[in-house]
């Protein structure tokens, strides 16, 4: 079984490519891209291989084990389950598409790719690590390059803010890429501090001198500990997942970030947060999760409806998409909060669906912005005349986001709603359904204002459809959206097995136990 270290290959291929890129003093743009794309392709192939080779029956497979600091139980311990497979696939698809979407970048492109690949290594690592310390390490690797990626390569266009507090905005340089970068980094690192405290508390309480997720998962923690560690993890990971009211880094960050970074950030990184809440928070601290589930769910509902309404008000295209991410991540958190099989299946599926969808959105927004240098929806109109293919892809992404059957978004949202209806508070499902309708309202409104109408305004005369490599991202992402929308069982069966396994574990450990310790 363990003949070839597939997971290591997936995780470290981007890192190796990053080092290679640093080492070769190339000035050739093509070489840079070929190296980067090859490494993402290696990861993609590896992910597919793992997904196909994963045997039904669940559990962690493709295990690898390399000791790092054995005295305190830190190991590079890799393995995937159904959740991991889905998210590995998502990540490798998005980064593959993202590497193509950055093809036209000109400024310091080598460094850009180096940071991008390092970031992806971190993302892959989080999804396959079975060691909490390494998990956290990868998590930080995934978060930190974002600072430079946004701060250096971000969009220089500032968002002009009007209103009575204009002076404050000027004082803090709000709207600039540097502001967005530092805001994002500070908020996420504050979250990380909570996570680290939570992890150390668990390590200490379990007393097994091991950071292994499996060992820690078998331990039972005192209720009092769970009651504060779970919220800490929820807040920490939740900040990255865009949980209200700690979501505000997301619109600014996504709006300022370059295309591929937006794709990766909204498409994959936000999922790290949700994955952390579910995998670490809920599975390992079931009592805390059960006690706090109603808060998680209610906040998720706020996310969904509030995010959709806020998106409706935006006039900047990137802000619309960013707020829609806030809204859709609410669906993921809602599914998680239900603690039901349908809800968790739906939550993981929504991560995949939303990742693909929002990746496609940001790729398209990047294409549009690259030609118009304007993101103000009110200035656009009639773009379908000059960029029909973009209009088609945008419509498909919109439809997936509003839950059109046949696209991945529906499969995900519907399962989440099913879970919510059968969960602790059925009215959550109503709010979710309302959110889906609000999504239809703002996303179709935006599509109409951008693409429909007599023709582009005079200042946008030479718009055109994507050319050459720009097609790759669009086609790949759209194909996956349709594929996962039509045939959900390609990954749903594995997700389901894993979910059921976790929920079984939770129901076994549910009875409160006074003392902490590893169960025999």
């Amino acid at each position, binding site marked *: 079984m363990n003949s070839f270290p597939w997971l290591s290959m997936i995780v470290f291929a981007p890192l190796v490519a990053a080092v290679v890129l640093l080492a070769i003093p190339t000035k050739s743009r093509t070489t840079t891209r070929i190296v980067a794309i090859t490494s993402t392709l290696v990861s993609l192939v590896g992910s597919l291989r793992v997904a196909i080779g994963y*045997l*039904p*029956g*669940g*559990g962690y*497979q493709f295990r690898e084990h390399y000791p790092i600091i054995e005295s305190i139980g830190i190991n590079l311990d890799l393995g995937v389950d159904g959740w991991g497979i889905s998210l590995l696939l998502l990540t490798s698809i998005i980064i593959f598409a993202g590497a193509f979407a950055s093809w036209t970048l000109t400024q310091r492109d080598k460094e850009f790719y180096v940071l991008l690949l390092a970031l992806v290594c971190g993302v892959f690592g989080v999804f396959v690590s079975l060691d909490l310390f390494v998990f956290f390490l990868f998590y930080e690797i995934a978060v930190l390059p974002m600072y430079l990626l946004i701060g250096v390569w971000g969009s220089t266009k500032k968002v002009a803010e009007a*209103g009575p507090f204009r002076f*404050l905005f000027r004082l*803090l340089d*709000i709207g600039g890429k540097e502001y967005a970068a530092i*805001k994002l980094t*500070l908020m996420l690192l504050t979250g990380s501090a909570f996570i680290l405290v939570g992890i150390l508390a668990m390590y200490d309480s379990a007393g097994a001198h091991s950071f292994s997720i499996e060992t820690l998962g078998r331990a039972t923690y005192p209720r009092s500990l769970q009651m504060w560690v779970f919220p800490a993890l929820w807040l920490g990971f939740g900040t990255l997942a865009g949980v*209200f*009211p*700690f979501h*505000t880094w997301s619109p600014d960050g996504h709006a300022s970030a370059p295309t591929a970074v937006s794709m990766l950030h909204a498409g994959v990184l936000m999922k790290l947060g949700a994955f952390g809440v579910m995998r670490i928070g809920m599975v390992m601290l079931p009592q805390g999760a059960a006690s706090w589930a109603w808060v998680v769910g209610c906040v998720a509902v706020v996310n969904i409806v*509030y995010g959709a*309404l*806020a998106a*409706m008000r935006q006039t900047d295209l990137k802000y619309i998409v960013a707020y829609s991410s806030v809204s859709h991540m609410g669906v993921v958190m809602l599914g998680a909060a239900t603690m039901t*099989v*349908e809800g968790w*299946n739906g939550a993981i599926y929504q991560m995949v669906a939303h990742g693909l969808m929002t990746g496609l959105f940001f790729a398209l927004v990047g294409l549009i912005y690259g030609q118009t240098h304007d993101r103000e929806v009110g200035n656009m109109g*009639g773009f*379908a*005349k000059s960029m029909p293919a973009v209009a088609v892809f945008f419509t498909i992404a919109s*439809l997936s986001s*509003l839950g*059109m*059957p*046949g696209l991945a978004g*529906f*499969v995900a949202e519907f*399962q989440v*709603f*099913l879970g919510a*209806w*059968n969960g602790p508070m*059925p009215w959550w*499902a*109503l709010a979710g*359904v309302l959110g*889906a*309708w609000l999504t*239809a*309202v703002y996303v*179709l*409104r935006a599509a*109409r204002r951008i693409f*429909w*109408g*007599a023709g582009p305004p005079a200042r946008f005369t030479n718009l055109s459809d994507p050319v050459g490599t720009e097609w790759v991202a669009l086609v790949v992402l759209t194909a996956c959206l349709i594929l996962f929308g039509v*045939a*959900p*069982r390609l990954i*749903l*069966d594995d997700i*389901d*097995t894993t979910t*059921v396994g976790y929920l079984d574990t939770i129901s076994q450990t549910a009875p409160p136990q006074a003392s902490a310790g590893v169960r025999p």
Partner: protein
Amino acid sequence: MTSTTSSADASPPPIFPLHADHLVLNLALIALLLPLACFVLLALVWPLRRAGRLAGWLSATVAVISFGASARLLMLVVGGEAPLTETVGWLVRDGKVIASMGVHIDGISASMLAVVTLVAACVQVYSLGYMAEDSLPAQGRYFTYHSLFITAMGGLVLAPNLLQLFAGWELVGLCSYLLIGFYWAKPSAGQAAVKAFWVTKFADMGLIVGLLALYGATGTFAWDAHLVGIWATAVPALLFMGVMGKSAQVPLHIWLPDAMEGPTPVSALLHAATMVAAGVYLIVRAYPLFELAPSLLLAMTWIGASTALIAAATAIVQDDIKKVLAYSTCSQLGYMIAALGSGQIMGGYFHLTTHAFFKSLLFLGAGAAIHAVHSNDIHDMGGLWKTTRISALLFITGSLALVGVPIFAGFFSKDLILEEMLEAGQYVPVAMLVLGAGLTAFYMTRVIVIAYFGDAAEGAEHAHEAPWTMLLPMGALGLLAVGAGFGGDLLATLWGQQYHFGMTPIGITTSVIGLGGIALGIMRYGTSTWTADLLGGLRGFILSGPVDRFWDSAWRQGLLPFAQVVGWFDRYIVDGLINMVAWLFIFLADRIKRFQTGRAQDYVFAVVLGVVAFIAYGMVGA
């Protein structure tokens, strides 16, 4: 690796159970998947799509083959073929399939499929002529959407459970959105398309919640589940909310008149014959659920009857020929809903069938007139009888069927509805429906008199008769508009019921009222001497669109400002607080940094002070 758990007996990989020798199944799959293949082909192979004409012929051929397959299927089912359900698992939960996709073939679905594919085939052939003046890529796009529509509608009709029905439901809604917005360069078309989507999707919220509740109560999406308690009423009521949107019942009908922005054949197929009837089909399909909710059924009767009356009254004052027909469609759907509410599923379904034929015929006829004069206004058409005699005749045939003149199709189905409702004791709704029938006769007469027999308008004098591609499907539908009424027996057989036509007092009354409406219409609009305006005051009120205004203000003064407030709140309060924290740190740091004088001596002084304090502490502590 870990040992396999008990859930290892997961179902085998999803492969559609094709049986080479299973004719019924294969026919259904041909009807369903051939248009899908055509859609995929046209969507992916852009040179073919942009070639236009070829794409059109391909799509139309596929539609005709699809109809052939469903007709053969219907014959087999009429011939006594047992109902058949074939599915593959689609969603799983705990290793078990909770939702499946597939086909369910019985009398209801087979007959509906035949109706859908027949009208679709006619409309596509018609479109070959009607759309000929559009650019070639536009034509290709048009037929691509149409192929998708047949698949989606087929999936809806053949659905083995409510979830697939819902999937098809949403997909036909998508086709509707795309086809209403077909002329996307026109701002009004874009607004109409989005409005149609929003309104139907708004209603679909009820449908989704209904599905959730159904699943919550029974664990399946089956339409014959047995519900108890509150859910017995709540689930069908929620489903009915979706129906009100899709089948354009007051007050959610507002999107249908606007939907006339699409090409006329689209209105004929989607917004008259098939898609809007999906709501009625849903109720027929899920009748075992609706049956258990008598209070809901009563509400349905009243909503249906009100819609029939209100929409018919609104149709009278419209000048746009398509809007007249659109309100007429609302009105006729009201008849069907009212019939279903009274427990007369056979009557409602029969009317759905005949309505599909004559209303699509009317739209195609209207399309021929529009094609001839390039205007939707009936006053621009005047005198078309002289130039386009065949299509005028067909239009009049359709009108007679709609009005319910005896021997025409509409007569039989409308008569059946009224008769059965009367038996059920629904006197007031019946009166409303009969009055509606009179109004129907009046507004159709108005259209015919003005458009075909009125003073010749400028453009109408040089109008040309439509090409054969348009006349042929109209002729086919015309035959059905005349003859479909005699198919009641056939339909009844499919349902395992008895149907005997007999002339009853209510039938006679309705016919008389209908003829009276025609006479009144001819008197009012045929001669200019009779000038008393029956509807003077009402006309202004109806034209101002009270229901539309209500929704419009809900949107403009409700949702949009609320979103503004939320956006402001997010920017200034939520984000403001976070910026405030940042600002607080900057502010404090600004104060604290004053300690950094930058003079080395000050730092040394601080060190000395510290040492002194340390020593002092040591001496005091000691």
